[in-house]
C-alpha cells in the first residue's frame, strides 16, 4: 500500500480547493454581517496599522481594509465566474461546431481561433479597456468573454474530433438525429471533463486579468474589488510608506483564491486523464468531484 499516501494527497487537492472556494464564497455572501463598516466610507485615520477596531488596518484615505476585502470578494468572484462562464460557452460552442461540422465551418473557426491565440491577450484587453474608459466589472467580464475563448475552442475541437468517431455518434447519425441534437446530447456530455477544466481555467484567468486591468488603472476606481484595492494601494505608494497591510491584503486574497481554483482544476484534470494520477485508486473525494462535474 505504498501509493496510499499519495492517493490521499490527490484527494486532498480537490478537497482543499473546494473548501477554499466555499470559504471565500461564504465570506463574500455574509459580508454585511461580518463588518460594521461601509466599504466606501472613511471610518478611520489614514494608513492605520491593523488593530482591534480595524482588523486589517485602513487605506490611504481611511477606509477599512477588511471591509473592502470581503466586499471586494463579491466583485472578484462575480466577474470571475461570469466571465469564466461566458468564455467557456463561446469556446465550447465554437469548438464542437468546428470539430463536428468540419469543412468550411472548421476552416473559418480554426483560422480565427489561431489568430486570436497569436494576438497577445493583455495588450489587446488594455487597448479595448482604454477606449471604453473606466470599465465597470461587467464590461470587463464581457470583453474577457469576447477575447479569451480561443484556447478552449482549440482544445474542445481536438477532443470533438476523437469523440465523433465513436460508434454511438455514428449510430445516432444513421438514425437520422438532427445535427444540433448530436452536438448537444451525444458529443457535449462526453466532453464534460474538458469543459470543466476549461471553465475553472477560465475563471482563474478572468479573476487574474480583471485584477491586472484594474491594477493598471483601467477599471472604475469607485468599484470595490481586489483589483481596485491593489490600484489604490499602489497609487498611494503603500509599500514605500510602510503600509504593507494595504497592499498585501488583496495580494494574499487573490493568491488564496487562485490556489483554491487551481487545486480543483488539477484534481479534475487527473480524473479526466487517469495516467496523470499519482495513485491508482479513485478516492472518495474525486468521486465526489466527478459526480459534481456537470455543475462545475
Amino acid at each position, binding site marked *: 500500500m505504498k501509493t496510499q499516501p499519495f492517493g490521499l494527497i490527490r484527494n486532498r487537492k480537490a478537497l482543499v480547493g473546494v473548501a477554499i472556494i466555499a470559504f471565500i464564497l461564504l465570506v463574500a455572501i455574509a459580508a454585511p454581517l461580518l463588518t460594521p463598516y461601509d466599504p466606501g466610507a472613511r471610518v478611520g485615520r489614514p494608513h492605520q496599522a491593523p488593530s482591534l477596531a480595524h482588523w486589517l488596518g485602513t487605506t490611504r484615505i481611511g477606509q477599512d481594509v477588511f471591509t473592502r476585502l470581503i466586499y471586494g470578494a463579491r466583485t472578484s468572484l462575480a466577474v470571475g465566474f461570469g466571465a469564466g462562464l461566458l468564455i467557456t460557452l463561446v469556446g465550447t460552442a465554437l469548438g464542437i461546431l468546428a470539430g463536428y461540422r468540419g469543412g468550411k465551418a472548421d476552416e473559418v473557426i480554426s483560422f480565427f481561433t489561431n489568430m486570436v491565440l*497569436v494576438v497577445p491577450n493583455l495588450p489587446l484587453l488594455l*487597448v479595448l479597456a482604454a477606449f471604453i474608459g473606466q470599465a465597470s466589472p461587467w464590461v470587463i467580464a464581457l470583453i474577457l468573454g469576447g477575447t479569451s475563448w480561443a484556447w478552449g475552442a482549440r482544445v474542445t475541437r481536438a477532443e470533438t474530433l476523437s469523440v465523433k468517431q465513436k460508434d454511438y455518434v455514428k449510430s445516432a447519425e444513421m438514425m437520422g438525429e438532427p445535427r444540433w441534437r448530436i452536438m448537444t446530447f451525444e458529443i457535449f456530455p462526453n466532453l464534460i471533463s474538458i469543459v470543466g477544466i476549461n471553465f475553472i481555467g477560465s475563471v482563474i484567468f478572468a479573476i487574474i486579468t480583471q485584477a491586472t486591468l484594474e491594477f493598471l*488603472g483601467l477599471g472604475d476606481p469607485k468599484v470595490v474589488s481586489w483589483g481596485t484595492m491593489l490600484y489604490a494601494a499602489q497609487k498611494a505608494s503603500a509599500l514605500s510608506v510602510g503600509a504593507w497591510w494595504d497592499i498585501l491584503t488583496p495580494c494574499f486574497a487573490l493568491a488564496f483564491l487562485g490556489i483554491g481554483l487551481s487545486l480543483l482544476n488539477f484534481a479534475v484534470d487527473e480524473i479526466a486523464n487517469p495516467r496523470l494520477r499519482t495513485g491508482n485508486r479513485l478516492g472518495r473525494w474525486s468521486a465526489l468531484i466527478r459526480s459534481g462535474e456537470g455543475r462545475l
Partner: protein
Amino acid sequence: MAFLLRRLCFYLAAFLAAATINFFLPRLMPGDPVQIMFSSAGAELPPESLQALKLTFGFVDGPLWQQYLTYLGSIFSGDLGRSIKYFPLPVTTVLGNALIWTVGLMGTATIVSFTLGTFLGILAAWRRGSLFDVIVSVGAIFATSVPAVVTSLIVVFFFGFTLNWFPTGYAADPALDPAFTLQYLGSVLYHGILPMLTLCTVLTGGFAVTMRNNMINLLGEDYIIMARAKGLSDSHVMLWYAARNALLPTVSSLAIAIGTILGGSLVTEVVFNYPGLGNILYQAILARDYPVIQGQLLIMTATMLVANFIVDVSYVLLDPRLKRA
C-alpha cells in the same frame, strides 16, 4: 520550408487583424474621437499636434477604405504617430527604447524558466509519485495560480522593502551613464534580479507541469520498454527516449505561453518601475495617451509573432518529420 512560409503568411494576417482593431476602435467612439482623446489626455498642445493625432489614426479626407489604406500604409512604413504625453516624440521612439528592456527581461526569464521547468518536469515524471514529484507538482500549482501582480508585489515587499537586499526600481543605477562598462552591466544585472526572480517564479511551474504530463503520457509507450529491455541506463532512457519526444508538445505549449509571459512582464515592470514597455504603457494609461496605448498593441503583437516564429523554427529543427514534409 513550405511550413514556415505558411506560418509567415498567417502571422501577416494576424498582424493585419491587430491593425484593423486599432483602426476601428477610435471610430466606434461617439462624437469626434480625436477631440475626446485630446481632451481626456488633459494636454495643452499646439494645433499641429491635433493634426498629428488625426494622421496617427488615419483621419484623412476620403472614404473609409481610403482612410484604412492610409492607416495601414503609415503603419507598414513604421510610423505609429506621435505620443500625446511626450509630444512631439514619435510613438516608435518612445516604445522602441522600452522594448529593448522588455525583450531582454522576457527573453532571459523565458530561457531560464523553460530550462529549469523542463528539467524539473522530466525528473518529476520519471519518479512519479515520489516525494520529489509531489513537491514539484504542488509547488507548481501554487506558483502558477498566483497572479503575476501578486507575486511581484510580494517579492518587491519582501526582498526590496523589508530585507533591502535589492533595488526596488529602475533598470540600472540612474547615476551611471549607459555604456558597455563592467560597472554599468553589473548594475543592470543587480537591478534585474528581482523582476527576473518574479517572472521565473510565475513561469517555471507551468513548464514543469506541461513537461511532466507529456512525459507521463509517453512512459507507457513500447519504445520506452524496448529501450529498457536493451539494457540502456536509466538516465539514457529518460533523456534520449522519453524526454526527447515529450519536448515537442512542450515547445508548442511555449508558443501559447508567450502571451502570458508578455502580460506577466508588463505587470512586473510596473511594480518594479522597470523602464520597459509595461511601465511606459502604465504611464500612457494614466495620461490617456491613446497613440502609445495603440502602438503597444502593434509592437507587442509583432514581438509575439516573432517569438512564435522562433518557436516554429525550433519545432522544425526538433521534429525531423517536418523537414521532409
